């Protein structure tokens, strides 16, 4: 579904060039849920943004459905296959566009017919009633906004969803609702997920396999089960698992 091969991403020019991602290689099978974990600045979100075509300074190979992509140019077919959900539901919705406007714009861009019926279905899919259709973002809670952002991504009927910290701005109770929703949608629509998170427990809950990143490099690719067992091959992975387990008095 998605292959990333020897991906390098950099920002700026020498001598200030920052190598945000170095030699990242992984592949995600159709229907799989793949996690990217690491601390801030480790390059996990940068990989997603490079795949989505939001960054042009990258080299290496990115392929979606065996179709290579280049630069920031993506064809219509790409956007029909791949959609992204961002971290901050407060920032990713236009404050003066109603839910109806957000979704109908996304549907029109995909050349969909029968927009009225589709909006109603999308809202049902993400567990928002029809009553939410003409609300504005400020009339929604954080969890409801994230549902709208997910509905917008689903509008294209994609097969691959890129999820960039989809729940880290939300309360734990709301996080549980959104994670359940994502799990349901994946089963219903046969979706493939690539999910970025700093929360190991969330990734272990959602993902079959994951890559641990540090300083722009993939340190280790492991299964969710291995993560649960704390069976990291690398020192850094074990350190990360231990630090995430919480605080123990020194």
């Amino acid at each position, binding site marked *: 579904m998605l292959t990333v091969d020897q991906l390098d991403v950099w920002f700026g020019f020498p001598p200030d060039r920052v190598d945000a991602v170095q030699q990242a290689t992984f592949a995600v099978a159709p229907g799989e849920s793949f996690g990217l974990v690491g*601390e*801030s600045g480790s390059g996990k979100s940068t990989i997603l943004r490079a795949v989505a075509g939001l960054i042009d300074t990258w080299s290496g190979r990115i392929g979606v459905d065996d179709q290579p992509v280049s630069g920031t140019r993506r064809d219509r077919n790409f956007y029909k296959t791949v959609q992204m959900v961002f971290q901050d539901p407060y920032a990713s919705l236009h404050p003066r566009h109603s839910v109806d406007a957000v979704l109908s714009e996304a549907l029109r861009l995909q050349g969909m017919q029968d927009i009225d019926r589709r909006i109603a279905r999308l809202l049902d899919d993400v567990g928002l009633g029809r009553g939410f259709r003409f609300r504005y973002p400020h009339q929604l809670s*954080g969890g409801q906004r994230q549902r709208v952002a997910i509905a917008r991504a689903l509008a294209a009927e994609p097969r691959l969803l890129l999820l960039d910290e989809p729940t880290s701005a939300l*309360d*734990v*109770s709301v*996080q*549980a*609702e959104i*994670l*359940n929703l994502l*799990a349901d949608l994946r089963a219903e629509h046969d979706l493939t997920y690539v999910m970025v998170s*700093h929360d*190991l*427990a*969330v990734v*272990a*809950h959602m993902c079959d396999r994951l890559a641990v990143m540090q300083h722009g490099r993939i340190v280790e690719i492991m299964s969710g089960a291995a*993560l*649960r067992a704390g069976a990291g091959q690398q020192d850094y992975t074990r*350190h*990360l*698992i231990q*630090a*995430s*387990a*919480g*605080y*123990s*008095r*020194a």
Partner: protein
Amino acid sequence: MTSPLLSVRNLRVTFPTRQGAFQAVRGVNFDLGRERLGVVGESGSGKSMTGRSLLGLIRPPGKVEADRMEFHDQPLLDLSERQMRKIRGSRISMVMQDPKFSLNPVMKIGDQIIEAYRLHAGGGKAAARQKALEMLDAVQIRDPARVMETYPHEVSGGMGQRIMIAMMLAPDPEILIADEPTSALDVSVRTEVLNIMDRLVRDRGMGLIFISHDLNLVAQFCDRVLIMYAGRIVETLAAQDLHHARHPYTQGLLNSLPRLDAPIDRLPVLQRQDSWRDAEPMPDIQKTEFPGGL
């Protein structure tokens, strides 16, 4: 039993809105000893407002009322701004969530610490500089002399938060209110910042109010936990008893967290009940008043 550092009874914080008065905090009672007290709740539960009201940081038209709000038997309510400034920063201080917004971006870090210290403790510039270096060293900043000369944008988030803590602790406060001090930090830096605060509580006998949304972290770090819901405390627990919480809200919050050690297919979702809003808090079952016993 020692007398508490801080005693709060029936604290209420009200904001007038077009729809009438909105009560962000609705009758909160607690005592703080020389301990680590955690305050947990979801966004909007009033935990930050509780912390801010202690320092008179609720701006009009917001209104703070309480039957009692005493710091060493000195009422904190109805202090003039001038009297409050004597306490705020020097005897009770506060660390906010994001160092990016609480440090002055156009002032060198050293100058900020020195200014804050001299404001509260007085003294000469050289002594204040010495103290600033000591404090930066105490929060484990390598090469403090270099960091003193940098601007906030030149340091990382974790370092910024440690600098904030250094600045807040320079005047040796008796109470530190930490509002989500580690939420913006990576896990490995988080442990370091917590260690620093932990040591300060132990070594100086400081009272710490640790406001957080992270139940498990609070349970591991604090001595006692207050759980807030809709502006009220619904349950008070000794931290090690958190997993024996009796209030359905606390249980719901705990269950909704995915856990590394116990995989489940579906996360239980918290079902809120209107009755929680006004029900009496869970009866206190703690054996001692301040289980931290510091």
